[in-house]
């Protein structure tokens, strides 16, 4: 199941995004997030995605971005310190880089 995000993903619509992700997990098990349209985002989105990863890991589902983070998202990740010392799993998740490189 592909969950698309709009241009804006901030604390103002964080609850809505959270609900649609949960619904997707409940109905389809595996979820892909399409964040390619995102222009405006804040840390609430990063946190939501991180929570979704935890959720997927706990319930044995697959959760991934359908494409590597776009420019806006990558800038946000760097500014927030998420790519300063990333684990291989993080690099793979956000940037689509092969693990174990």
């Amino acid at each position: 199941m592909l969950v698309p995000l709009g241009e804006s993903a901030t604390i103002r619509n964080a609850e809505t995004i959270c609900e649609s992700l949960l619904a997707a997990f409940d109905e389809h098990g595996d979820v892909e997030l399409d964040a390619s349209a995102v222009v405006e985002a804040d840390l609430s989105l990063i946190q939501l995605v991180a929570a979704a990863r935890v959720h997927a890991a706990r319930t044995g589902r697959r959760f991934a971005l359908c494409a590597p983070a776009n420019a806006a998202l990558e800038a946000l990740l760097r500014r927030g310190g998420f790519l300063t010392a990333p684990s291989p799993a993080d690099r793979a998740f956000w940037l689509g880089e092969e693990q174990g490189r």
Partner: protein
Amino acid sequence: MSGVGEGQDPVAAFRVEAADLLDGTEQALLDLTHDLGSRELIDTVFRGMHTLKGSGAMFGFDALAAFTHHCETAFDRVRKGLAPATQELVAVTLSAMDHMRALVEVQGQASGAGLAAAGIAAAGEAILAQLHAAIGDTAAPPPATTRDAATGNSDGGDAGEAQGGWRIAFRLPADAMANGTNPLILLDELRDLGEAEVVAQTGAIPPLDVLEAQECHLGWEVTLRGPATREAIEDVFIFVMDDMDLRLEPLTAAAPLAPPLPAAAQTPAETPAQTPADRPAQTPAQTLAETGPARAARATGESVRVPAERLDVLMDRVGELVIVQSRLAQLASGGINGPAGELALRSISEEVERLASELRDTTMVLRMVPIATLFGRFRRLVHDLARETGKVIELVTDGESTEIDKTVSERLADPIVHLIRNSCDHGLEPPEERVAAGKPAGGRLRLAAEQAGGEVLITIADDGRGIDRERVRAKAEANGLIQPGQVLADGELLQLIFQPGFSTAAQVTNLSGRGVGMDVVKRTIEALRGTIDVTSQPGRGSVMTLRIPLTLAIIEGLLVRVGEGKYVIPLAAVEECIELSLEDDIRSRGRSMIQLREQLVPFLRLRELFDTGTRPDAFQKIVVIATGGERVGLVVDQIIGSHQTVIKSMSCLHRGIPSFSGATILGDGGVALILDVVQLVALGQQQEERLRAAG
């Protein structure tokens, strides 16, 4: 509300606002005297003081802010139930209001006013002493400053500076993001302090199904290299400091390139974060930059508050005017061709006429203020008078929404103050005298306003003893104003109180006898083109009636010609116009009186008065004008018609000339003088008296 004249100057805006605040607070205080337990009123007073202090300090009114602080504190204590509201407290706070008014005024005046300021400061000290006594606050008064006292803070503990830098671990309160704190901005600020390595900690983020999406479960570790001080770092977190977990460790010189904190530091909630209590209170105002001395206040002009909708109406009219103007320009460029063009021109002319008249009305209305603002001042006055005289006085007001020109309103204040003083001092009796006369112990003073046509009627009525006619007569005789035993109509007798130098006060009290007599009142009213009348019933009270034109700037006038000159007679004063037949003219040569419905009315030949040197027209007219019950006829050569008269005041060279109150410019560019009705009526009466005396 938007301000006209406030423009872009907050200091000017503050002056207007301070006046309003003081008035409003004073009203609340006066209401409080009747209902000491009212929480709402106490809150209103407190809030008024609070705003006055806060805004005053903002705009450099430091003395005002410092003084008001004490009153605010007093009412804060009352508000919190730590002290009772008492009549003493209200009384001293009322005098404090006057002091605050003085402080608003003194601020921003030239520094030469230092002596006056010193006097004011001394007066302020006295009031504060009373205030502290009234609130039962025997302790030393708090320091007279509004600034936070906690400025001299210094952080003890480890050195404020770490040579190599800091290892910073922090976690924000869960509601920080929802409450507007953006952690990214905090990180940016840390980066501004030096070379920063920022690592986000995501370990505390719960799974999606238990996540509250707006809460913040992120943490960070930042290695900051450089000379940043502890204070500078804490300053970044100033707004969230008290609820967050923040750990600061100096990077040791030995290990300047130490790796980030181990994973254990991801739960800083368990580490001994510096608690808020360890830290002196800080505020952005102190830490970001101490506020400099307040800017010097600038002197300010008069300003008027105008409800925004009135400005909207004005804008609409101006918009229409622009449209008409473009039609006119089109017509002018195309040339006026034939009847169609003339018709178009006439239609534009009519449109402009309508707009001009509407614009005039709308603009006039901008200057109008409700008379409530004027009446409001008198509540305080009556309150004080009652205290001073020991009388019980109830003030009743009516028609407070009646609107009046702002200038008129301001110029009416002094005369009405005098009339109220008179009523309270002479008119109303002490309680025991009233009870003896079978009246209620409390006197009643009624202040009412109503609009009647182009005038506002203001009445000041008391239910006191009324004017003592015998004393008026005796006094007038003693002063030579009338002959002993001279027969006077009751109205004439009462009018004597308006004569210069007349005063019936047997003893000069604190309230009356200030050298301002009723004659000054009368002259002030007349200067506003108004009139004052008095009626009085022995034992029942007196009524003063002021009739004031709504506005000073424009009057309806009757345009007349005398000789070759044109003159305007205020239409409000015109009673009727009659023909003066040649026959009557000749017959009345000596006496200058005409018979008007059973009454003889004196008349003045303006042609002679103005010495025009012209021959009278064959069909002269008499314009009968009246003021205060007196009538006089003015003989003119021709009545031209009614005229919207925009009054221009006379130059200072001509201002002293009686008979004229101003001038106006006519449609053809000529000038017409405006006749002073009061003066002319007086002149007519004098002429009649002379003739009568001559037999």
